C-alpha cells in the first residue's frame, strides 16, 4: 500500500520544516521530489535545507510545479501526444494569467462570439490550443496536456515517474486547481508515496484557469480528496499535526482566525523559543498621518496589495502575494478599500482572493501587525488596538 497523505496546515505551523525533516529522513537510496507552485517557496525550501544540511542531498530534487510538469509530464512523451511534437521542441512555457489561446482575425484584432465574449481555440486546433506561435506551452494548459498525454500513452507518464521517485511532497498544495487535481489523482493511484501540504486559507494563486473541477477551486483540496478519489485510492487527511502557529502570538492568531470562521481556530504553540514577547505585541490600527512615525519607531515591513499602493520607500516593502512562507517580526499593512470595510465590520464580505492575501499578510508577523486605517476618535474597532 502506498502512503498518501494530505496535511492541512495553519500559517506559521512549520509545514515546510516538516516536509524537509521527513524528506531528509528518507533513505538515501530513494529519490525524493519536493515541489511547490511559487519560485519563492522553492527557494525557501532550498535555503531551509541548506541551513540544516550545508548541502542538498543528491537524492532530493526541489523544483517548481511547472518545471516538474514540463520535465516529467510534457517532454518525455510529447511526440506520442502529437506527431508534430517529434519535429518541434517545446520552447518553454508562457505564463497565462487568464484563459489562453484567444482568436484573432488576420489583422490581429480579437474575435468575439455572439454573446460578446472572446473566441478561443478549441482542442481540435491542437497547436493553437496549447501553444504560442513559437511553441511555448500555455501555463494554464500544462496539466491538461500531461493528463491527455498520459491517456494517449496508456499511463506511461506516471509509470515512468514512479520509477524515478519513491516519494513526492507537494507544498502549498492549495495553489493547485483544475487539471492539477487530475494529476494529483494519478499520483495517488501510482505507487509513489504522496504527501500534500497546504493551507486552504492561503490561495493566492491558481495554477490554471481551465474549467475542470470548479467545485474545488479556492483551496478545497480536502473536499476533493474526500469526494473524488473513489474507494480504491486511499488518502489520509491530517488536520491536527500542523494546527498550531509557531510564528504568530495569541492576538494575531485570534484576529486572523476571524477571516475564516468555518475553519478551526488557530492557536499559538507552546514552545518556549517561539513565545518571546516585546513591548509592542498584537494588532494595531495606525492613522495615515502617523505612519511615518510608526515606521521610525518599529521599522516594520510594509505589505501592500499591489505595486499601485504608495509606500515609504525608505523601509522594506513587499506585495501580499510575495510573502507567503516568510516570517517577519513586524509588519504594517496597507489595506484595500474592501479590507477596510472588513476591519470596520467583520461581517463584510471579502472576495476569496483578497481574503486569502490579507490572511497571508496578517499571519506573517511574529510580534505586531499594524494596519493603516484612518479611525475616528470614538470609533470602536473589534479586535484591534489603536496606536496613539
Amino acid at each position, binding site marked *: 500500500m502506498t502512503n498518501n497523505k494530505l496535511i492541512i496546515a495553519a500559517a506559521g505551523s512549520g509545514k515546510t520544516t516538516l516536509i524537509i525533516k521527513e524528506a531528509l529522513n528518507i533513505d538515501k537510496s530513494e*529519490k525524493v521530489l519536493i515541489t511547490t507552485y511559487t519560485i519563492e517557496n522553492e527557494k525557501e525550501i532550498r535555503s531551509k535545507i541548506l541551513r540544516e544540511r550545508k548541502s542538498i542531498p543528491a537524492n532530493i530534487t526541489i523544483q517548481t510545479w511547472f518545471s516538474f510538469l514540463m520535465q516529467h509530464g510534457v517532454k518525455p512523451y510529447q511526440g506520442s501526444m502529437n506527431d508534430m511534437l517529434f519535429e518541434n521542441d*517545446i520552447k518553454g512555457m508562457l505564463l497565462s494569467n487568464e484563459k489562453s489561446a484567444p482568436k484573432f482575425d488576420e489583422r490581429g484584432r480579437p474575435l468575439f462570439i455572439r454573446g460578446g465574449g472572446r473566441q478561443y481555440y478549441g482542442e481540435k486546433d491542437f497547436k493553437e490550443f496549447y501553444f504560442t506561435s513559437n511553441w511555448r506551452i500555455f501555463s494554464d494548459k500544462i496539466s491538461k496536456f500531461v493528463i491527455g498525454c498520459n491517456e494517449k500513452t496508456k499511463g506511461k507518464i506516471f509509470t515512468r515517474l514512479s520509477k524515478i521517485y519513491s516519494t513526492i511532497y507537494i507544498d502549498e498544495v492549495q495553489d493547485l486547481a483544475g487539471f492539477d487535481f487530475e494529476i494529483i489523482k494519478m499520483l495517488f493511484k501510482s505507487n509513489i508515496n504522496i504527501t500534500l501540504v497546504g493551507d486552504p486559507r492561503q490561495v493566492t494563486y491558481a495554477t490554471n484557469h481551465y474549467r475542470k473541477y470548479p467545485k474545488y477551486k479556492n483551496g478545497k483540496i480536502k473536499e476533493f480528496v474526500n469526494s473524488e478519489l473513489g474507494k480504491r485510492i486511499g488518502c489520509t487527511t491530517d488536520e491536527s499535526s500542523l494546527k498550531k502557529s509557531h510564528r504568530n502570538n495569541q492576538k494575531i492568531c485570534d484576529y486572523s482566525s476571524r477571516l475564516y470562521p468555518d475553519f478551526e481556530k488557530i492557536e499559538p504553540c507552546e514552545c518556549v523559543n517561539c513565545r518571546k514577547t516585546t513591548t509592542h505585541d498584537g494588532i494595531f490600527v495606525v492613522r495615515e498621518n502617523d505612519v511615518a512615525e510608526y515606521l521610525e519607531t518599529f521599522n516594520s515591513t510594509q505589505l501592500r496589495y499591489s505595486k499601485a499602493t504608495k509606500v515609504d520607500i525608505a523601509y522594506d516593502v513587499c506585495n501580499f502575494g510575495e510573502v507567503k512562507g516568510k516570517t517577519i517580526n513586524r509588519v504594517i499593512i496597507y489595506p484595500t478599500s474592501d479590507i477596510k470595510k472588513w476591519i470596520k465590520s467583520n461581517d463584510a464580505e471579502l472576495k476569496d482572493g483578497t481574503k486569502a492575501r490579507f490572511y497571508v499578510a496578517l499571519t506573517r508577523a511574529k510580534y505586531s501587525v499594524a494596519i493603516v486605517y484612518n479611525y475616528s476618535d470614538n470609533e470602536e474597532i473589534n479586535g484591534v488596538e489603536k496606536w496613539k
Partner: protein
Amino acid sequence: MNLKTAHIKNFKCYKGSFKIDFSQGVNIIVGNNETGKSTILEAIHLALSGVLKGHYLRNELSQYLFNNEVVESFLSNLKNGKNPELPCIHIELFFDGHTTSDYAKLQGDNNSMKTEAVGVSFKVEYDESFNDEYEALLAEKNELQTLPIEFYKITWKSFARDSSITTRSIPIKSVLIDSSNQRYKNGSDVYISRIIKNNLNLKEKAGVSQAFRQVKESFMSNPSIEAINKQVKKNSHISTNKNIEISVDLSTQNAWETTLMTYLDNVPFHQIGKGEQCIIKTNLSLSHKKSEKADLILLEEPENHLTHSKLNEFIKSVTNNCKNKQIIISTHSSFVANKLGLENLILLSKSKVGRKKTYINELPSDTQNYFKKLSGYDTLRFILCKKAILVEGDSDELVVQKAYMDMHDGCLPIENRIDVISVRSLAFKRFLDIAKIIKHPVAIVTDNDRKFKEKIIDKYEDYEGVESIKIFADEREELNTLEPQIVDANKKQLDILRKALGIKKSRYNSEKSIVKYMVSHKTDTALKLFETAEEIKYPRYLEKVIKWCDDE
C-alpha cells in the same frame, strides 16, 4: 544496464542512417579497413561523454565530422539553386534495463524510432538562432565552399528531452582505449587520469583535491616563498594598498587531475611502452568497482602494440574480469576474435549500396569452443576476404594459387581479395559453420582419399543447398589425392610435367612412378609447379574452383 543499440547518422564515414546492436558482454567488431569500426567506437564514446579524441567537441566543431558525401551533396544542391536542408549529425544510443531511477529519467519518445525507450541523443545541428546571419551569408554569396559550421551547435538530450544531461547523469560510463594517446599539457595521459578518477568515490575525490590544495598552500607559506613575495612587494612600485605576490594557480576546479601525473615504477605513464599502457588502462577500467554505474569499455585494436604473448595475457584479463561490464572491441586479429568468442563477432562490410553489419551469434557452441581452443586459425582472414578457398595443405595451397594465376594473367588470387587458406581438413566444417551464418562464399578443395561417399557426400551433407558453400573434389577414387590428379590431368603431356618438376624421363617413365615421386616430395613438387613457366594442365575440379572464383 548496457548499451543495446547505436544509431549513427552522417557521422564521418556513415552516410545516412546506420544501426548496430550490441549484446551485454563482449562485442567484437571486425571489418576491412575503412568499414567504420573506429568511427562506431568514437560515436558511442562521444554520445556518452561529449568527448571526441580527448577534447570536448562543443568547442571544436568542424566540417570533417560530417560525412563527406552528405556535405558535398548539400553544397552542390545549394549551388544548383535548390534549398537543401543543412546536414545534421545524429548519434542515438538506446540502453537496456530501465528499472532504476537514473534510467527512467532517460526514458521517453525523443528518438528516431518514435517509441518509448531509454537513451540519449547527441546531435550536431544547425542552430536556428543564426537564421539572420545564415540568410545574410547566402544573400551575399550564392554558393558556399564549405559547411557553415560556425552556425552549428551541439544538442545533447535524453530521450525524455531533458537537455541538462551530463556525463554524470548518464548511468553508463564509457572508457575509450585507443592508441591515439591524448595528453594534458603537462604530459599526463587524459584517459589514465579519467580512469583513475572514475575509480574513486566522492569522499576519496574530495580527499585528493584537499591534499592537493594543502600542498599548494604550504608552498605559499614556505619561508623562502614568503621572502620572495616580500621582495616582490618592495621592488614593485604599484599603487598603495594593493598587494602583489606570486602564487600557485588554485582557480581551476579539478586542478589535480590535470596537474598530477601517473607513475608506473617511477616512470611517467606516458613514457612506458604503448602495449603496457594499453594493458594497464584496460585492467584499471575493468577493475572499476562502482556498482551504480554500468561500465562500457571501448577498445580499439588492442593487438596493435602487443606481442603475441602479451596479447594472450591481455585477453585473459579481459575474459576474467568482464563480468557485468560491456566491452566493444574492434580488431583485425583472428587471435583476439577467436579467444573472445566468435559468437560475439559483428562483421562490418562496405558495398556500393552502403554499409552493412552481420552478427555471428548463432554459431554452434562446439564450433565456438573449437576456435577458442585452437585460436591460431585465421578466422578473420576467412571472414574478411571476398571469397575463400579452403585447402588441405601447403601443396594444395600452392597449386590452387598457381592454377588461378595461369587463368588470370599471373595475378595472385589475393590481389582480387580471394584468399586461399590452408587448414587441416578436420577444421573445414568449423569454417563452414561460420560461412553458413554470414552467407560467406567459400569453396572447399579436398581429396577423396578413396572414400568419395564417406569423405565428401556424407561429410558435407549438412551444407548441401547452402548457396555460398561449394565443395570441390573428384569422384574417381583411384585418384585419391592431388598428386595422382595432376599426373592424370597431364597424362598426354608427361614431358612437360617432368620438365616442370625437373625430373628425368629415364628414371620416371610411367605415370605411376611420377605419382610416387610427387607423393614423396610433396612440398618440393608443389613449389616447382608454382614456379614453373611450363603450361601445366590442372584437374577438372581445380579448374571448376577457379571458374567459381570469377562467378558473380
